[in-house]
């Protein structure tokens, strides 16, 4: 009997004796994920400020930009202010648009090499959804180079629109995280909540453990942007 069959047989055999039950029906998992209240236009300002506050708590930074047209200038200003010279962006329309005013910015394509990724000091990613309750951004990467962009450069910029903002882990909010799995896409979806961190030495928080030391999220169309 091979390992697979042996394990499955052992499981079947083990489960012949039912476990003692206590509380809760065992088929509770058939019920849907908890739904949070979605915000309408009136809630956008509150969500945006909650997102900013939550991201600040995990050492990230939020910039509000009035419109998508003004995004490239706003991103370029931050990149220049921080003295970043090697910028690499995801190939999505929004991320490449955000990088359009940065001199020498590279957009990931089939010619991108590991050296391009490793030598970059800033990455620009498209946030497919933002979660206000945790200050998180959902990013989807389908090529090897895009998979590495959230981790390799010292600084990570995520660009998103106010319409991508959700309160918490609702079904709508998580659809970019779950959708690629259901559609059998390859690569990785990742929820990013702040810059890379560690507390492995005496529980003292250090940013930039392996990945970025800085995370900046730009939200276009935000009230007050």
């Amino acid at each position, binding site marked *: 009997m091979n390992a697979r069959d042996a394990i499955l047989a052992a499981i079947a055999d083990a489960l012949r*004796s039912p476990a003692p039950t206590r509380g*809760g029906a065992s088929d509770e998992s058939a019920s849907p994920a908890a739904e949070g209240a979605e915000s309408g236009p009136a809630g956008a300002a509150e969500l945006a400020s909650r997102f900013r506050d939550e991201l600040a708590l995990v050492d990230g930074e939020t910039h509000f930009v009035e419109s998508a047209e003004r995004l490239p200038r706003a991103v370029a200003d931050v990149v220049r202010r921080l003295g970043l010279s090697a910028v690499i962006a995801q190939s999505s329309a929004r991320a490449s648009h955000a990088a359009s005013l940065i001199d020498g910015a590279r957009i990931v394509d089939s010619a991108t090499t590991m050296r391009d990724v490793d030598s970059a000091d800033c990455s620009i990613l498209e946030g497919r959804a933002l979660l206000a309750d945790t200050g998180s951004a959902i990013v989807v990467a389908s090529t090897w180079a895009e998979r*590495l962009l959230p981790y390799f450069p010292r600084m990570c910029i995520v660009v998103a629109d106010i319409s991508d903002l959700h309160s918490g882990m609702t079904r709508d909010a998580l659809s970019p995280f779950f959708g690629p*799995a259901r559609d059998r896409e390859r690569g990785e979806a990742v929820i990013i909540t702040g810059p890379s961190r560690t507390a492995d*030495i005496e529980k003292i928080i250090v940013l930039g453990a392996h990945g970025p030391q800085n995370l900046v999220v730009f939200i276009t169309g935000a009230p007050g942007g």
Partner: protein
Amino acid sequence: MMRAFDRQKVARDLRRPHASPSLAEGVQRSLEHKHAAQRQVDWQALRRRAHAIKAYAIANLGELLVRFENEFAARGGTVLWARTGQEAVEHVVAICRKHAVTSVVKGKSMLSEELDLCAHLQAAGIEAVETDLGEFIVQLAGQRPSHIVAPALHLSRADVGELFHDELGVPFTDDPKGLSAIARERLRTRYLAAGLGVTGANFGIAETGTIVVVENEGNGGMSAGTPPVHVALMGIEKLIPRLEDLPVFLQLLARAGTGQKLTTYTHHFLGPEPGKAAYCIIVDAGRTALLADPKTRESLYCIRCGACLNVCPIYRRVGGWAYGGVYGGPIGAAITPPMVGIGAAGELPFASTLCGACREECPVDIDLPQQLVYLRRRAFERPRSGRIIESRAMRAFAKSMMTLGAYRRALSIARALAPIAERLPWKPAWLGAWMGRRSAPRIAPQTFKEWWRQRA
């Protein structure tokens, strides 16, 4: 191939003051963050739901594993099965050989600790380096992790500074930021050189055949994404049925483990991109033994958050190594004996005050105290030397408690013998071992009733 439980080593560790102040302070800080983060959600409702989902997953484990296997394969991955740790290691070595891999980077994974994977890869001539900072530190020190979530919690910053100075040849610093930067620089070159990356799996989603890994440093994403081959090690119990079950656990895991609302990175590995390869090794290694006994089955619901360790008065005093196996604290005491055999680790369930704090803190509501009591009974029932004397003594004790007359007679005998026993220069072996570490309770020279009568 679970690491052997070494009783003598445990005894030695218990005598060493390795449960450093940094351990106690560290777990205290985790607890404070955690309790603040718990108040932001309906904690009790979430843990009830998580318990129910896990109960369903474990009750339908065979079916869900097969579904996961089919879906993972449909995404271009390969599923391998391992009955034992030895088989799992052989799979990893075979994958390395197949892809001509000589260098491996590994993210944090408790299962890989069970397998002692890095050591076995090194023995097979394959360089293997831990990339989680805490794991990197303990690997460099030639030690084992002392905590599920924070492997180097037992070391002070000065310890780490000296270690880096000695092993990496860098100037001494005890600044955590500087130490972290040194590790970052060293490990970056290893990611680029590695032919294979190993991660664990916090959750396997049966519905989609995808794997979810949570972490804070980014090393998990880099270990999985940088090398051309990714191997995920997954215990059979890590499955959840559907994607929509995941948010329940994401909201619990980070809050329980580190007091964060969400870890910095929640990776959802969807399958290999063109030109890459992905494997998932599904490992039993003693888990079906936990499953086979309905009374220990619930411990398979564990999501390895480490919360029960942080509140355990025993763990906080003795640290993780004292448990001998890979898993310390209450969960270690509950899962290690069935996994490695009661005969080998039957003492572990006794390393508990049964105060119940572990159950209170467990985000999936595992009744750990009940399991520990049950395992104590199993440990007691197994045949071992000294059992005859012990059981006769207990029978005599029970008899003396049956009637008031017998109790009085036993008490007067004990009162007469106790002072003599204490003054004996030599005690028989088992009595000597007992009294070597304990003080016998002092017996009052007279009973309360005798004293009352005298007083009247």
